[in-house]
């Protein structure tokens, strides 16, 4: 290839398009051509920027999972330029690359604002995982109502086949051959029949596309989507484990499903008849979270999703285990992070039982124990603080709960504050939800216009120093930052105090922030910043936790600064600045400087 060819080739790739003649030449002068056989690791990706000239490359994350396929004109992860990726690359085929020293790209990035902005934006997009807004992609394909395949023999005429399609309102038809299947779609009919002036009496087999891709119905929904994306097709055939054709997965169907996701996912829980069935679902949770995270799904959606599944499971369990009079006279509530729908990995049991006044049953104790044991078997560890229905403190009548709240308000101490904070986030899961509602009303009545108490309640928001020093750098302990103390807890707790004051029914922190913004407590842009910051910190924590689980360590709230890329460091600092502004707000709102 001549120099002119290389220049032309580079110019046809988007970000290089933005470069000046001089900058392109700089790259071309330093370019090297590299050849790899298949299944080789591409070396030196931390010093060179690679562009695929021919061939296929698989990008793997540090845990060794495939995250991307690269083909002609694809550039290796932009994050390499920002020094924020540890992904590795392997050839899947014989591959030829161009490579340029990263140092040169970086120096060009310094000069060229537009180029720089693009690189940073792409990087950020990857970081904040904007790729997908959809949290519900991990249903098994078999749980989705699939299009029934319309199967015809390859010998019948196109006309008959189309007639069948019209009758069945199908957009595609599966054609059976002796040695397998083919597919004919609306598009095929347009292109291969009408435009080609083909006779409709010819056998349908002649126009069928026999290169069809199939997935297993035990695969996740997004496996199907990724397959479609990989091949650039709109539908795949679904087979069961015995290789029988069971349906067609259609991109359009998936899109339609988006509007009512929770139902079909929850369906699996609802359909489950035994503990074993539920166990399968709950066991796959961590893995599911990992996959969703890797697929770039927003952490708050993953949380919401995990919580919904958890709630379904609790409800199911309650229905299976609770005798009828208990079901009719009590309300199962979840509290704390469960109640806020912000559980993601360590889904402790944080629950309680609200009894109708005057109700008692000798079965209560047994039921509670069974419930706890069942949850334990399902992989929900016991709550360390004993916030569980087996604890009589959290299994009592509505009046007793009210008495407790009255007591919290009148005897301020850390223990009571903790209990109240847990209780404020309560959400009813099963049974008589009016009980939970009444309790919540009572909390609002007791607290929402009690400024003094609210101030004390809000105080823990500012208890911990944000880990930023006065020069805006990190204040780390042994190279690590506690994300929970430093930012997550302050936001969650401050927002919690505000939502009691303004009687918000929402329990989720993100939803609460949005509500507070609607009530004009926060400026809209501040609400946005708060959400972004909280989510960024949660995402970092999730990523670190997943890593730690992988390494068989116990996940905690710490993140090592050296594990962060420069961009992530900047984003984290920005998040902490937002936390500080939020603390200022809480101090002002609750006059905390008077009571400390």
């Amino acid at each position, binding site marked *: 290839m001549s120099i002119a060819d290389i220049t032309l080739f580079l110019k046809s790739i988007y970000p290089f398009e933005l470069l000046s003649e001089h900058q392109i030449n700089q790259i071309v002068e330093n370019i090297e051509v590299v050849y790899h056989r298949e299944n080789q690791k591409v070396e030196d990706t931390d010093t060179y920027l690679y562009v695929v000239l021919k061939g296929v490359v698989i990008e793997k994350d540090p845990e060794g999972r495939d995250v991307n396929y690269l083909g002609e004109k694809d550039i290796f992860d932009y994050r390499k330029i920002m020094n924020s990726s540890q992904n590795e690359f392997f050839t899947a085929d014989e591959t030829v690359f161009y490579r340029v020293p990263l140092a040169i790209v970086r120096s060009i990035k310094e000069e060229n604002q537009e180029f720089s902005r693009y690189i940073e934006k792409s990087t950020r997009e990857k970081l904040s995982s904007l790729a997908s807004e959809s949290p519900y992609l991990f249903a098994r394909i078999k749980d989705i109502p699939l299009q029934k395949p319309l199967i015809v023999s390859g010998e019948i005429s196109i006309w008959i086949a189309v007639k069948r399609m019209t009758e069945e309102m199908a957009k595609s038809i599966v054609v059976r051959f002796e040695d397998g299947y083919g597919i004919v779609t609306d598009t095929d009919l347009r292109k291969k029949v009408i435009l080609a002036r083909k006779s409709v009496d010819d056998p349908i087999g002649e126009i069928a596309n026999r290169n069809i891709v199939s997935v297993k119905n035990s695969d996740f929904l997004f496996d199907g989507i990724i397959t479609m994306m990989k091949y650039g097709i709109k539908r795949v055939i679904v087979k069961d484990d015995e290789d029988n054709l069971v349906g067609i997965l259609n991109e359009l169907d998936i899109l339609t499903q988006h509007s009512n996701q929770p139902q079909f996912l929850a369906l699996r829980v609802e359909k489950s008849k035994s503990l074993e069935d539920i166990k399968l679902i709950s066991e796959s949770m961590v893995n599911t979270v990992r996959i969703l995270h890797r697929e770039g799904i927003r952490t708050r959606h993953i949380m919401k999703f995990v919580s919904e599944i958890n709630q379904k499971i609790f409800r199911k369990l309650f229905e299976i285990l609770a005798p009828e009079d208990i079901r009719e006279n009590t309300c199962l509530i979840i509290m704390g992070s469960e109640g806020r729908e912000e559980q993601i990995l360590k889904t402790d049991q944080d629950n309680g039982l609200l009894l109708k006044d005057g109700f008692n049953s000798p079965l209560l104790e047994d039921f509670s124990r069974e419930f706890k044991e069942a949850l334990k078997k399902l992989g929900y560890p016991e709550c360390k603080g004993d916030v569980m229905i087996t604890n009589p403190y959290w299994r009592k009548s509505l009046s007793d709960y*009210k008495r407790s709240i009255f007591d919290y308000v*009148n005897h301020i101490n*850390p223990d009571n504050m903790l209990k109240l904070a847990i209780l404020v986030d309560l959400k009813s899961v099963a049974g008589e939800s009016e009980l939970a509602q009444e309790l919540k009303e009572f909390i609002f009545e007791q607290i929402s216009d009690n400024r003094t108490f609210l101030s004390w309640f809000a105080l823990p928001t500012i208890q911990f120093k944000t880990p930023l020093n006065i020069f805006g750098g990190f204040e780390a302990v042994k190279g690590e930052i506690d994300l929970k103390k430093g930012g997550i807890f302050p936001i969650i707790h401050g927002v919690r105090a505000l939502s009691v004051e303004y009687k918000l029914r929402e329990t989720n922190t993100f939803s609460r922030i949005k509500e507070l913004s609607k009530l004009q407590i*926060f400026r809209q842009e501040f609400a946005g910043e708060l959400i972004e910051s909280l989510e960024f910190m949660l995402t970092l924590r999730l990523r670190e936790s997943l890593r730690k689980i992988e390494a068989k360590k116990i996940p905690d709230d710490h993140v090592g600064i050296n594990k962060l890329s420069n961009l992530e460091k900047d984003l984290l600092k920005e998040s902490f600045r937002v936390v500080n502004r939020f603390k200022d707000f809480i101090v002002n709102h609750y006059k905390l400087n008077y009571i400390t």
Partner: protein
Amino acid sequence: MISRFSLIMWLVSAGVIGLAFAAEGKTVNFVAIAMFFLFVIATLGITYWAAKKTRTAKDFYTAGGGITGFQNGLALAGDFMSAASFLGIAGLVYTSGYDGLLYSIGFLVGWPIVMFLLSEPLRNLGKYTFADVTSFRLEQTRIRLLAAIGSLSVITFYLIAQMVGAGKLIQLLFGIPYLYSVIIVGALMITYVAFGGMLATTWIQIIKAILLLGGATFMAIMVLIHFGFSFGDLFQTAVQNHSKGESIMAPGGLVSDPLNAISLGLALMFGTAGLPHILMRFFTVPNAKEARKSVFFATGFIGYFYILTFIIGFGAIALFVQHPEFFVNAKQIIVDNVPKIVDAADESKNLIGDKKALQGGENMAAVLLANAVGGPAFMGFISAVAFATILAVVAGLTLAGASTLSHDLYANVIAKTKDEQKEIQVSKIATFVIGILAIILGIVFEKQNVAFMVGLAFAIAASVNFPILLLSIYWRNLTTTGAFWGALAGLIVALVLIVISPTVWVDVFKNPEPIIKLKNPAIFSMATTFILTILISKIDNSKRAQEDREGFETQYFRSQTGIGAEGAVKH
């Protein structure tokens, strides 16, 4: 939230003061200075350390723990035993003897009044500023405007007292000019507040109260040891040494000028109930029982503290005779085997008890006595305690002022919109403005006895805040119009009387004669507020007045029971 930052700040300020001192090139008390910094760093270090330990879920809520009545009593005492009262009252006793005690008694009697009349209803209402309480049933806009004017006036005078005290202290300790001392104090205070170090003051006040009580006890014991624990000997020596002789043992001012004395007494008694940072303290305890307990303890501590200051003041009179170096242009002479401190130029002029003769002025009597009984290290310790006290109080006042400006004045009167984030900005700017103002006022009022300035702050609190608070809680007929004009009139009377009094008219404006002799305006200004407010409220027949009166029932029920109208619970 006392952070490492505060520590750094202290070190920086040490450098600043050190440089300022080096520029002056005077001889200084190095032991005292070293002790000063050691102490300040240790105090902040403790709070930093205390804030660090957290491990379990519950630890996340330790801040929400509230404090006990005993602790709050100490904190209240800490608030009250401001440097101004410590330095100022010791100074007053030193110059006037028995009369100085009048202040102590006045302060002390204020407590039960705060307690029985106000603290519990306020707690029950769940409101913690004057404006929040009174606007419970009265109209927001005018009430907040009034609150802003009243609170700012109180804060201003209180601030002056603290600034003067701190300026004098730094001047004496580091030997730098008063002007620089005040600027340094002001700058420190602004930095302290602006960079968010102003939290956890409760603990600072508690620590400070303990240290101040400890230090003062030590001084009093040293004085008493000197006289073999005989009060008779102490007073006898004092009478012998003091330039005013036996009259220091008699209620001179009370007899010669009863109106002034009564006026001062009223201000001190009722002003306590109108001070923003004191009212606040009742919300730091979790329930009414603890609040009552805290007043009990606070009264005990403060009473004990004033006994100590009394002994310290007399100790200074009795012992300074051995320390001519504490005086400006003085020498010691022996007459009939009795030592005397006299003016270097005029041997007939006895300087003991003289307002101006002491190094740093009368306010420094306690600090100098610390040097006399405990040496330079102890003097450094007392200075550091006093200085930390001042900084905490001043920062607290600045914050209260900034919050009044931003919340009551800006948000509720000027902008009338709900934008708390804007409020925070305004409050930050206000902090700077108040800080600068404090420096200027501190310079202007250099020569005033700080206890006396505190008296004026109390007079305004007693004339504006107290009557309206009291009436709004207990008197159904109070209306917004009545409260607004009554209190405003009271404030104006108070301010005018202060300006034409000897304090400002003669001492600040340098006129030869005051227009009136009354030094403390409370007796007239308080009466003005009460009478006018009641009169105007009575004849007020506006629609708003009806609403004001209708709101009383709900408010009264709540203030007496702590139960919101709908929030009753069986138990």
